């Protein structure tokens, strides 16, 4: 009965907050439902046939969750998904409230939930998912999340409590993620890249900023036969012989987005699909008409010129955005750096990006945002000629005015800066 009250009350709250534009009504109902009944999530999910699919990782979770919804839709199945930002335990409860009928039923085939890295262990205390898709772990907002090893340790102990009701879909090329598959009762399937697909990316020495360079089991320095980017590659430990597991899926005919990192997202999605009897053909069809999530390689127009936004929020995502822009032969770049709560207050990470190794010095680049001067300094010391224009709208206008009609302005913002610039471009607020 308590759950029904939570659902009714929560739905009313969500309705009112969206009707009167009270901002994000996406986590309070869940918070209250869990206060009234700490087992709310367990009971609501337990009484339904809905399969819970959790997606987590530092980079790519929003895109992967969106790819999964696209193939589920293609296969004519129904789903429920969490709203952006509602990615903690409260967010899971709130998503259940918004999707449940008043009698507490879910009536959907899947609940696809993008989880915050730190919240994942707590979510697993609340419920046992059918699938957990784990993409990667990179340094990200160290002031908020802590170090990569700290999160890996928490994940590792959370995985040990799973049983074979759960299937883990793991990245074989990230040592810390792959290692999670070795000490669990859950079923495990791996996705990874093959050497042949990665022409141009291959190296064998990790570049600056790679995080998991040592064996997750014995702490010896890992040997990489191939590196695709950062610390993702074909790895083995010379001491304890732990090595990259052979991936169950490493290639598909076509990928929905550019960049090596998006190959991982597409492979993870396809592998999940295969486990759920969603055919390769269905996945490929879904990918062919896929439109990216906001800010993730999203194409927009502004004053009749083309812009494309590449959310770049930590060293690896920034480097990989630069690689993708290089692949697209981009010549005009606008970088936005903010230091608000959702971004992390610490901007030190910009010194871990390898822009001088990736882009040509001829590129036309401007920097803006709350920390425009910090980013300007980073580029000065990389010896790029840079325009520092702290006001984002002015920076955007100056770059757009210089753009030829057939050119694209590539925009690299971190999180809050992405919301800001998107609002300037579209004239609307999304969050």
């Amino acid at each position: 009965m308590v759950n029904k009250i939570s659902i009714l009350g929560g739905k009313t709250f969500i309705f009112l907050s969206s009707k009167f534009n009270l901002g994000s009504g996406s986590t309070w109902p869940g918070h209250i439902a869990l206060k009234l009944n700490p087992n709310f999530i367990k009971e609501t999910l337990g009484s339904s046939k809905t399969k819970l699919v959790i997606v987590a990782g530092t980079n790519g979770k929003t895109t992967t969750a969106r790819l999964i919804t696209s193939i589920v839709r293609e296969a004519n199945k129904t789903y429920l998904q969490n709203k952006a930002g509602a990615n903690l335990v409260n967010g899971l409860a709130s998503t259940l409230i918004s999707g449940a009928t008043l009698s507490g039923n879910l009536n959907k085939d899947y609940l696809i939930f993008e989880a915050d890295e730190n919240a994942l262990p707590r979510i697993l205390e609340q419920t046992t998912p059918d699938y957990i898709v784990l993409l990667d772990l990179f340094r990200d907002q160290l002031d908020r999340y802590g170090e990569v090893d700290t999160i890996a340790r928490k994940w590792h102990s959370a995985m040990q409590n799973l049983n074979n009701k759960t299937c883990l879909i793991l990245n074989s090329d990230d040592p810390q993620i792959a290692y999670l598959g070795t000490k669990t009762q859950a079923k495990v399937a791996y996705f990874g890249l093959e050497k042949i697909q990665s022409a141009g990316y291959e190296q064998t020495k990790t570049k600056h900023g790679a995080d998991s360079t040592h064996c997750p089991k014995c702490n010896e320095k890992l040997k990489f036969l191939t590196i695709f980017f950062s610390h993702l590659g074909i790895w083995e430990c010379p001491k304890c012989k732990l090595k990259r597991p052979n991936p169950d899926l490493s290639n598909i005919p076509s990928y929905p987005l550019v960049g090596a990192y998006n190959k991982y997202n597409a492979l993870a999605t396809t592998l999940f699909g295969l486990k759920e009897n969603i055919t390769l053909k269905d996945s490929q069809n879904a990918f062919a008409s896929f439109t990216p999530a906001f800010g993730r390689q999203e194409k927009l127009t502004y004053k009749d010129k083309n812009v494309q936004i590449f959310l770049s929020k930590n060293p690896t995502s920034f480097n990989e955005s630069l690689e993708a822009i290089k692949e697209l032969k981009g010549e005009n770049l606008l970088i936005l750096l903010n230091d608000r709560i959702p971004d992390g207050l610490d901007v030190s990470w910009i010194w871990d990006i390898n822009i001088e190794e990736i882009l040509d010095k001829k590129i036309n680049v401007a920097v803006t945002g709350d920390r425009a001067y910090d980013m300007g300094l980073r580029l000065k010391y990389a010896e790029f000629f840079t325009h520092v224009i702290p006001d984002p709208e002015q920076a955007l206008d100056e770059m757009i005015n210089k753009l030829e009609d057939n050119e694209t302005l590539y925009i690299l913002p971190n999180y809050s800066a992405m919301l800001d610039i998107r609002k300037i471009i579209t004239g609307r607020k999304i969050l």
Partner: protein
Amino acid sequence: MNKLTIGWLYPELMNIYGDRGNIITLSKRAKWRDIIVEVKELNPGFSDQTLKECDLLVMGGAQDKQQSIVNEDLRKHHETLSEMIDAGIPGLYVCGGFQFLGNYYKEADGTIIDGLGIFDLYTENPGHGHERLIGNIAIQPNIDELTNLIVGFENHGGRTYLGEDIDPLGKVLKGHGNNDGNTEGAKYKNSFGTYLHGPILPKNPQFADYLIKLALELEELKEIDDTLEIEARKNVEKKLIL
């Protein structure tokens, strides 16, 4: 023509929090003065001879697991490093690097890890229930040649307590510093320990130049345009309402 040899201690392991920016800043600021720069990457297994060839040493922070590998390797160079520091070879030791040079580090569970004992200080992690000290920070440096404030970002669980034979790097104006919001970092001969990331040198070019001058025993360096550096520092000062 002058040549600056920078010894970068454990770049493969102690490279978190963007501290590579200190190496980039020192290298570029020297290069822009027509000084030839060589950066020696001192990864586990380096020789004492290579260490001795360096004019300036720089060490950053790391994750806990990596710190234990460094701790083991660094012991092999204890004597040489200690002699170099005592002889006035300048160095910048950030966060984990700073803690290593002290007498010991006491972990949250009470385990004591011996330090190199070159800096008269010790560090304790008070453990669960005590927050990490995280945030923007500004200090008034305790070095006559530095007339500007130093700004940065701190993120550390350990609290460092200075002994009698060592001075702080500066006085905290905003932030936490070593432990209680009073002193920050340490200064011993020409070696400096600090909790400041950001990284510390790009926004504090006076400090970067001071290290270069100490390393090459120069009185002056050619002026360069630091407008952007100054704006970046002032932006942090403004955030801290200074």
